[in-house]
């Protein structure tokens, strides 16, 4: 039974749309995080001194602290953006797909 349902969902064009849209969105966000984080790790690995530079004359705030603080906040905002879109738009689409698969059954 399940297998039939899965087959119906898979052939539903909306399923392809869901997978493509959510996949693109999730991977884009993931890449942003990965590139920023590993970019930062590369700087730590190969040019650590640059992170210890103060942002201004006499300031104790270093680039390293600012960059990290930014990433803490920015990454969290990205999670909020993803949850918002996935829990509304993508979940609604998912429900439609499941509903249509049930309908086809009768």
């Amino acid at each position: 039974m399940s297998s039939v349902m899965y087959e119906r969902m898979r052939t539903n064009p909306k399923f392809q749309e869901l997978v493509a849209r959510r996949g693109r969105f999730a991977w884009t966000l993931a890449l942003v995080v990965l590139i920023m984080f590993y970019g930062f790790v590369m700087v730590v690995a190969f040019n650590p001194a640059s992170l210890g530079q103060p942002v201004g004359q006499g300031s104790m705030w270093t680039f390293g602290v600012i960059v990290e603080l930014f990433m803490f906040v920015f990454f969290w905002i990205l999670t909020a953006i993803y949850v918002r879109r996935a829990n509304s738009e993508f979940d609604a689409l998912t429900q439609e797909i499941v509903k249509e698969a049930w309908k086809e059954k009768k």
Partner: protein
Amino acid sequence: MMRRLTQILATLGLLSLAAVALAGPPVEGAMEKQATNWHAIIMFCIFVAMTMGITYWAASRTKSAADFYTAGGGITGFQNGLAIAGDYMSAATLLGLTAMVYSKGYDGYIYMLAFFAGWPIILFLMAERLRNLGKFTFSDITAYRLDQGKVRTMAAISSLVVVCFYLIAQMVGAGQLIKLLFGLEYNVAIFAVGILMMVYVTFGGMVATTWVQIIKACMLLAGGTLVMILAFSQFGFSFQTLLEKATAVHALGTKLMSPGSLLAEPVTAISLGLGLMFGTAGLPHILMRFFTVTDAKEARKSVLYASGFVAYFFNVIFLMGLCGILIVGQNPEFFEGGVVGGKLIGGGNMVAMHLSKAVGGDMLLGFLAAVAFATILAVVSGLALAGASAISHDLYARVIKKGTASEAAEIRVSKIATICLGFVAIVLGILFEKQNIAFMVGLAFGVAAAANFPVLILSMYWKGLTTRGALFGGYGGLVSAVLFVLLSKSVWVDVLHNPAPLFPYTQPALFAMPIAFLFAYIFSKTDSSVRAGKEIDAFDDQYVRAQTGFGAEAASKH
């Protein structure tokens, strides 16, 4: 019911916070070494009494296997977010990372970002698939379309290895802490933690463990914030002033705020980054938490809340560590023999504790000590539950009994397993007494990243994964990660007392993860058996379920 309980807990948390705030000015003066701290004992006893009450309540609600492993799948996203944060922010976080910032400065902050950066990745790539495919353990997902017996055995073994590494860090922290505060023998302290944990888990299962996590997370957030505010206020809440003073007195001087000795060479820095980020996504006790929520929607919310709390608290810890440099590091009261710059009383991990005493007196010290105990108990319980479910759900019910075991028998096995794990934890805690605990956690993450994560992510994303590939990948990652750790300085030299390490780096992830992925790929690609063909065909249905959640485990009704 749950909602009302949350309100009661929140009120209690606020009350205890207020009590601490009213406790009066910092008590200055000579601290008797290891004097019994009655504040700490009383507050800890209150915590234990409260959690025992919850365990009693939970025990009456824990009837089925689903109740035991996943609290019936009825936890909300917010509750689970707090519980995940509770699971994730261990004593190693509070004690070890504060100590790391205290001694190494900015390096500690880099560690924290690496601990945090795994969360968005888990959300984007894993959370909903975990919830849609899993039931009780993450092996449910890796073994979804593969050979149940072999793949589950592999996943269970690597789960247990990670659990044991992680347990070491928690137990060592517990022992040091209790030794400092009660003047109790280290070994006695270790036994106390082990036994309390057994009670929570065997009687209350996931329901009790979840509520212990939630209470503890609230206490930790409140306690840490209070200490940070009190300490930071001494510098007029000015980061500039704080750093000017800290760099002036710290042995590292202006290098304090640059990446330094911990990440001295590139390989270690990259390997650590990989290990911490993907290790988070391979920790069995964290992955298990995704099965406690009702659906993928709540699973996503869990990550949102959890990562918010974690990010916030890491920044609190960063400030605590920096304030500690001045408030603790310049006060002879906290050093053995009163020599500033000598050995800290209670060991290097005790910076956070001393800081709380310096800014809030015995009352705040007592509160933070109780929080640290609570933290250890909660994390150890979560780990024990994850380890026990690997033994009972994966090994016993699915591998040995091939799915024919009754629920009652399965639960009984997991209770026995919990007790055994408790004793293992006690023994490991005693063996590894002298290790830096944040570092031990780093190693646990390294093994999780290499042994659990590669096979798990491939099983969800790569159609071509076969049983043979999963086994070679999983065992390859596990064996290589453990070997790299055994042969590295931290075990080969520091524990086994050999003169030189055989593996030059301390972090295994950069080397062990590629081994796992490569093995999984090669041995899947070259697998032309009939079974492999079936497994590959079965991916399509799994894929639809992963995407839509159709057929996913539903929450049991209460």
